[in-house]
């Protein structure tokens, strides 16, 4: 069997078509490295500048606790260092949220890109491996069996005292080695470019991450190879096999994700920002209607009942609006995840889902960013309440509340605070490259492995029954 493997590898490497395709794949990895290194550096630069600006602006607010707590910071999500793997659509995912001590809202996409530039296909590893290398897998496997039959060499091969299982495995492993060699070379090339241009720094974590991604991609490509060999073992003519495989490829790469999108849009209705605005306005009105008249008339001094009711009312309104906003975001996330789930029916969709999870980009990245915003808002609120308590100014009723981004002067402490005591957004921490266990897509990986085994079994049965004459 070892001999068969060696023979397949040699044949594969010598073949002109493999050489061309390999050059193609390697050059796309090179382009990937170049494009993403430039983009990452530009993104990190602009992110650092925005963080510095936020800090500077925050400092200006520290002279007055009330102003500080109401001051709306724009938190921008740190660009992911693994965008070169799974960051193709990162520029359209919301990456900024406005936070103050009372609410976090308004996920926006702050884009530094040139609006005028025509849109091009983003070439991250998901695209290269999921679209181009799967095509390569189709092209090296479509005639692995029926091509040999046509050339007449299959009968010769089978006449050796080697079992069909060994031949099948030998062919499979030979092709797999060729494919993974290309993959690893390409990946290293891409990494080399990223490291040399200084976009990323070398670390054991980065290497481990690349190894994990290689493993996952290898399993996906193996599935495509097995598919190719199975189809090849079902037909007598290489041309037929090629066409069937190409149709399958189009279904896997284009049709399934497209249909997944349709289905997810039909099944989960996401409210428009207009509807949300209306809902919030209605809720707000309902809250004020339920309050006594005096709650909306600000007479008397700060300590009077009116002011207390006013503050209570507004606290309820802000909480209600936050709830509605959170619900809307949850619906959006639900729709996006449903789309991902449906698209995972295809191996490319599954690869896409796994790599997005593992690299914490896409929807996963947004989820943790949003949760982080909520945590930060709570920290700011706790800080405000604590600082207010520490202030024993008798001229203020010390009711910590806000209308969203302002409060009536002196309702709570307006003393200055030290910048160093103010809670800060923690995304400043170093690049997190390795996924936590929770992020690791175990189930999806298992499904991928099972699919491999299933197709291998079918393929082998087809090959075992194959007539080499």
């Amino acid at each position: 069997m070892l001999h068969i493997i060696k023979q397949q590898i040699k044949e594969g490497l010598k073949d002109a078509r493999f050489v061309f395709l390999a050059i193609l794949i390697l050059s796309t990895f090179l382009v990937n490295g170049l494009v993403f290194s430039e983009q990452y550096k530009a993104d990190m630069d602009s992110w650092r500048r925005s963080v510095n600006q936020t800090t500077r602006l925050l400092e200006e607010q520290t002279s007055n606790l009330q102003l500080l707590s109401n001051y709306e910071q724009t938190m921008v999500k740190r660009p992911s260092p693994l965008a070169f793997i799974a960051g193709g659509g990162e520029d359209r995912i919301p990456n900024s949220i406005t936070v103050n001590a009372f609410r976090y809202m308004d996920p926006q996409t702050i884009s530094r890109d040139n609006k005028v530039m025509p849109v091009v296909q983003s070439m991250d590893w998901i695209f290269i491996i999921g679209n181009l290398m799967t095509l390569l897998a189709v092209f090296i496997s479509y005639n692995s069996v029926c091509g040999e039959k046509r050339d007449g060499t299959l009968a010769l091969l089978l006449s050796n005292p080697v079992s069909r299982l060994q031949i099948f495995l030998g062919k499979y492993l030979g092709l797999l080695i060729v494919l993974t060699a290309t993959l690893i070379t390409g990946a290293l090339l891409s990494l080399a470019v990223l490291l040399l241009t200084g976009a990323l720094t070398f670390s054991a974590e980065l290497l481990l991450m690349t190894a994990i991604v290689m493993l996952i991609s290898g399993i996906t490509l193996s599935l495509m190879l097995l598919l190719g060999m199975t189809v090849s073992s079902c037909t007598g003519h290489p041309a037929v096999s090629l066409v069937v495989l190409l149709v399958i490829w189009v279904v896997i790469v284009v049709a399934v994700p497209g249909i997944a999108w349709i289905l997810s849009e039909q099944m989960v209705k996401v409210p428009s920002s207009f509807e949300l605005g209306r809902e919030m306005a209605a809720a707000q009105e309902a809250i004020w209607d339920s309050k006594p008249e005096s709650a909306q008339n600000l007479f008397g001094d700060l300590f009077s009942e009116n002011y207390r009711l006013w503050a209570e009312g507004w606290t309820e309104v802000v909480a209600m609006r936050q709830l509605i906003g959170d619900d809307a975001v949850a619906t959006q996330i639900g729709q996006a995840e449903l789309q991902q789930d449906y698209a995972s029916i295809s191996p490319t969709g599954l690869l896409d889902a796994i790599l997005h999870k593992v690299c914490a980009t896409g929807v996963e990245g947004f989820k943790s960013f949003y949760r982080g915003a909520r945590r930060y808002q709570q920290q700011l609120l706790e800080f405000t309440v604590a600082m207010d308590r520490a202030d024993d100014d008798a001229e203020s009723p010390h009711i910590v509340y806000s209308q969203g981004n302002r409060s009536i002067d002196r309702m709570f402490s307006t003393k200055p605070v030290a910048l160093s005591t103010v809670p800060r957004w923690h995304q400043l921490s170093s690049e997190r490259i390795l996924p936590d266990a929770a992020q690791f897509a175990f189930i999806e990986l298992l499904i991928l492995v099972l699919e491999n085994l299933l197709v291998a079994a079918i393929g082998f049965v087809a090959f075992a029954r194959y007539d080499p004459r």
Partner: protein
Amino acid sequence: MLIAFLAKEIKSHLMTFRFMAALLVTFLLIVLSVWVLGNDFVLRNQLYVKLSESYAEQSDDVYVPSQFSPMMHKPPTPMSIFAQGKEKRLGNAVVFSRWSVPSDAIDQLTNNKLTADRLSYDLMTIFILIISLFSLLITYDAFSGERETGTLRLLCSFGLSRASIFTIKFIAGFVVISLPFLLSFVSALLVLQFVHAIAFTGAQWLAIALIVFACLIYCAVFIVIGLVCSAVSNRSSASLVLALFIWALAVILIPALGNSMAKFFAPLLPPEEIEQLELQTAAELKVILAKYMEEETPRIGGSWQGAYILDEKVSLFDTFSVAGYNDILQYARYQERLKQERAERIWNAKRNHVVREKEQAELAAILSSISPAFQLRDVFTRLSGTGFKEYDIFLDGCRRYRQAVLQDFRRRGYFDRNIHDLFMRLPKEYFSSDEVIRKRWDDYLARRDSGVPLQDILTWERSYQPLREDLFPHFQYRGAQPDFNAALWPIGLLSLMAAVIFFIGFAVFIRYDVR
């Protein structure tokens, strides 16, 4: 003889499994894509209509001209069904403001930005990626395949010149690819008509016709590429690989590299500059206005009243004397002038940035111009009106509308002699003398202390009649128009490519060894 040969070629292609599969896949993809995006367009359009209506309703809340802030909407275009372009990446709504020049639009029609990162499978993408692949597959073994099976020798032994053989192979391939496409496209149009009831204007129909024409030329380009690859190598597998290599280069690599290189050679101005300018001018303005209020219009007094003026909600409570009232007017005039000047200053800075962006995009276009995929994309986006140009035209329209409204306000004196009318709800008589003002204030206090609800007291203010809708200019936008002039250039280029590659293939085939 020629006709017979042509007929035989076409038949031999049509009878293959390959063709059937290509037909099926093309049909499914095109019809599915148009159906899905048609549905999406209908929903977006409904949302757009609802938004326009609701904003029209909200004009009921405009009591004074300073509250006039309509939203200018860009309707979605049905042509986006064929080419999404930037329809979902750029905004489609701008809020009118006296104090800022429209330079960016917000997106009011996209509900879920999280799903926006998926490749959109519009007709343009399908064509660029998949139909080109199919075109190559039809012809990659036109010569090398026949050479392998030995029939090429036979073919050349007939009385046909090599020129005619080459041309006929091309025509056959072209017919075989254009039939599925035209069939699918017509079905797709029928789906749009009957399932979604989407209507196109005359200009849009012409644009669709041109798009179909451009698509056919695009197919032709790849068919001749396939023929060339076929005529260059002896083995069909080698020509397949060469063809795929060229496909990946032309369709994927060159546009990506073109963009990257343009970003490298023509970098943009840092956007932080604008943000800095905005913050800096806002801070400066705050200081200047505070100083002015202190020095020139001290009778306004009190941060509460000051805050009200900035919010333009001056009411009875803020003026206790005629002098104070005059101060408010003077301050408002000054503030208005300064804020409008700031808007212009920021806009001028932004304009420079946009110029640089356009230069970078032009460089990318030049560098990618050799890619037929890029040219086809250009045709699609220009004819469907979903490129940057339409967005620019819309914003320009918004700016001109703002100018028109400002001029109207100026004509009515809202910025100088009639500034009272700009934001005050109370009639001028209420401020005719100190006694009148005092009396009203005492009156108000008396009523409030006797328990009259606030809403009833405030009916003294000018009757709550909203301003008439037709008082001010209305925003008109003609909707995305196909840009025929700009589309002719890429179509021409595509035709040129097809012709040049045809002749190259022809030259290569002449020397092809058929043995």
